[in-house]
């Protein structure tokens, strides 16, 4: 869903802010992720060197993206896979839907992929009349709830255990016997097993595309990816073109950063390289493998100031450490990708006019850049969007008027000093005991916090007085 189709960001954020259960759910998961990441980094003294290496690997690939994409295509094709190219989301949807329809697919299993969400695959399959079963546990939960992911690593993190129990009771046959996480996970295991084995097509994403072998790599904990990609007759991979790495060893260098930054683990339970379809004589595996390489705005980013965002390996650390995300959760952002990385990517995907609020939903505290495992300067990129938004005339109303008035005064020092002198004296009239608790036209500020009562004289007045006093002492 694009950001344009929903109520405005401020309305969404306000609604989420008043959702007490959401705050509990977010704090549990992100708090845990923050602690575990810190411990994993502390236990890995070489982390900074590894991060520098990861950044350099991504920059190298991005600088030679055409070379590596062609190398990947050559090797994947040699391994028996069919490589498709899609300029945008509509082309990608059409390719995947066509493969499924040509195969007369009735049931498709899917292993979690944010790229799949980005290109709108769930809706496209539904429109084509194909049953889609999400196999990642969190994706299974939000499929039952009819929702979008709220986090790129834990898509159902906005749901409490009690809410999951209600969804499973209604959606599982038979329903789970109890609502502790262990029993509920067993229930999902039972429920999905027949789907895994009965699917006609399995669709996955890719954490890495390995150029020199033509393999795609998935990184998962549950084992659902392999159960999605092995039994069906056809395996389809959808992946962004920036996922490419030169070799398996380069993938490993990034893997060390990815897992620690995402979950605080060292490795996920399953790191799987998928290279072509079933080989002659193989005991199992799909007969066809299709890989859809998706651009959808990425080559545009390559040519502008958002190029560094192509380094992103989708770990989610930026959102786990973001003070804004932790207040409003992922759905309020409105796009496929939430949090700081989403605030950079959503304007690329949905257009700045529909998402100009996102780059503003940031305190510039810099924590996202601090924890980013590939050194993306996210606050700088958000400022770039603010600048573009200003230049495109999207920043209208009070802020534009106020900054215009300020700029006019700032270029006239006498006027500026006069206005300051009047201002600090006038503001004192609203203060009680050192604080201003309410102020006409500034209710948006004072509704949530008090403003310190000004000293009564401007900085320049105090500075002159100080200088004069020093002169007198001399």
């Amino acid at each position: 869903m694009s950001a344009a189709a929903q109520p405005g960001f401020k309305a969404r954020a306000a609604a989420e802010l008043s959702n007490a259960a959401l705050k509990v759910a977010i704090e549990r998961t992100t708090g845990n992720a923050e602690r575990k990441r810190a411990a994993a980094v502390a236990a890995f003294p070489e982390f900074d060197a590894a991060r520098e290496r990861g950044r350099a690997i991504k920059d190298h690939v991005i600088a030679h993206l055409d070379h590596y994409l062609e190398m990947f295509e050559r090797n994947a094709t040699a391994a028996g896979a069919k490589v498709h190219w899609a300029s945008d989301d509509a082309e990608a949807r059409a390719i995947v839907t066509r493969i499924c329809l040509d195969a007369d697919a009735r049931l498709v299993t899917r292993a979690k992929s944010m790229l799949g969400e980005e290109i709108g695959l769930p809706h496209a399959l539904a429109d084509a009349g194909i049953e889609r079963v999400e196999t990642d546990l969190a994706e299974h939960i939000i499929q039952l709830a009819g929702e979008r992911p709220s986090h790129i690593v834990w898509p159902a993190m906005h749901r409490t255990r009690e809410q999951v129990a209600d969804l499973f009771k209604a959606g599982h046959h038979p329903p789970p016997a109890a609502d502790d996480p262990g029993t509920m996970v067993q229930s999902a295991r039972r429920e999905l097993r027949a789907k895994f084995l009965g699917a006609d097509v399995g669709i996955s994403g890719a954490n890495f595309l390995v150029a020199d072998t033509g393999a795609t790599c998935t990184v998962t904990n549950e084992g659902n990816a392999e159960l999605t990609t092995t039994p069906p007759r056809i395996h389809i991979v959808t992946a962004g073109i920036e996922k490419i790495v030169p070799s398996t060893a380069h993938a490993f260098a990034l893997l060390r950063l990815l897992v620690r930054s995402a979950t605080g683990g060292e490795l996920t339970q399953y790191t799987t390289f998928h290279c072509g379809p079933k080989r002659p004589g193989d005991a199992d595996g799909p007969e066809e493998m299709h890989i859809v390489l998706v651009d959808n705005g990425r080559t545009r980013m390559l040519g502008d100031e958002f190029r560094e965002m192509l380094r992103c390996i989708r770990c989610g650390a930026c959102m786990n450490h973001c003070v804004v995300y932790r207040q409003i959760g992922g759905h309020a952002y409105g796009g496929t990708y939430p949090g700081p990385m989403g605030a950079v990517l959503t304007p690329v995907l949905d257009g700045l006019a529909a998402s100009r609020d996102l780059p503003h939903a940031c305190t510039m505290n810099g924590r996202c850049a601090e924890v980013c495992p590939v050194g993306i300067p996210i606050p700088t990129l958000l400022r770039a969007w603010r600048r573009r938004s200003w230049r495109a005339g999207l920043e209208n109303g009070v802020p534009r008027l106020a900054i215009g008035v300020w700029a006019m005064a700032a270029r006239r020092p006498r006027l500026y000093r006069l206005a300051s002198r009047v201002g600090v004296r006038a503001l004192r009239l609203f203060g009680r005991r050192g604080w201003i608790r309410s102020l006409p036209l500034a209710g948006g500020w004072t509704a949530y916090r008090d403003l310190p009562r000004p000293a009564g004289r401007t900085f320049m007045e105090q500075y002159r007085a100080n200088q004069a006093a020093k002169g007198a002492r001399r």
Partner: protein
Amino acid sequence: MNARQRILTAIRGSTGAQRPVAVIAAEAAALLGRPEVARPGLAAPELREAFALKAAAVGTTIDHLDRMAEVPAAVRRYLDAQGLPAAVALQPAAALAGLDWGGIATHPDIAPDEAVGVGLAEWGIAEGGSLVIHSGPDNPVLLAFLTLHHVLVLREDRLLPHLEDYALAVQDNPQPRNAILITGPSGTTDIEGSYVRGAHGPGFLHVIMVRDSSDL
């Protein structure tokens, strides 16, 4: 212009003329130089101990044997300890099929709710306590995923120190359809972040380490 040409043309418009392939390859190789400065050290000086420490830390259970011939008895001990019947899905690999399984009924097919699968690890990686399996005619991938208990036999001469050592060890071999690094039993933290074992794949991962596999 088709999508492929559009994408490649757009990339070249931004990155400029392509440098010689050898130069790109040299730069890519240089990015992996001195790997020791950018990876974690081993948990112990000795490979088998380092592997065992890391594997245990992610919930893998471990048994140590001297010889391959002892494997069926070790599997039997595991089945008894877990209260499981003496029947396993066995990977059709020569090294396992050639053993005397005595009282354990083995079968090659894997049921949708198979209780126990016994297979052979291609490699072990000490860095994170990972086991590597490769798909092939004698190794169905589903053996590692449909089973509730996954038992892997690891020959100690197949232990490698780091992830890069695995990449190096296989680089001249044909890539299998699936190369899978298994690091602990399947799990999930998707409900309120609480860790639950056995999400879709095995809830139990048991490794039988064999010191001397020359009797293979």
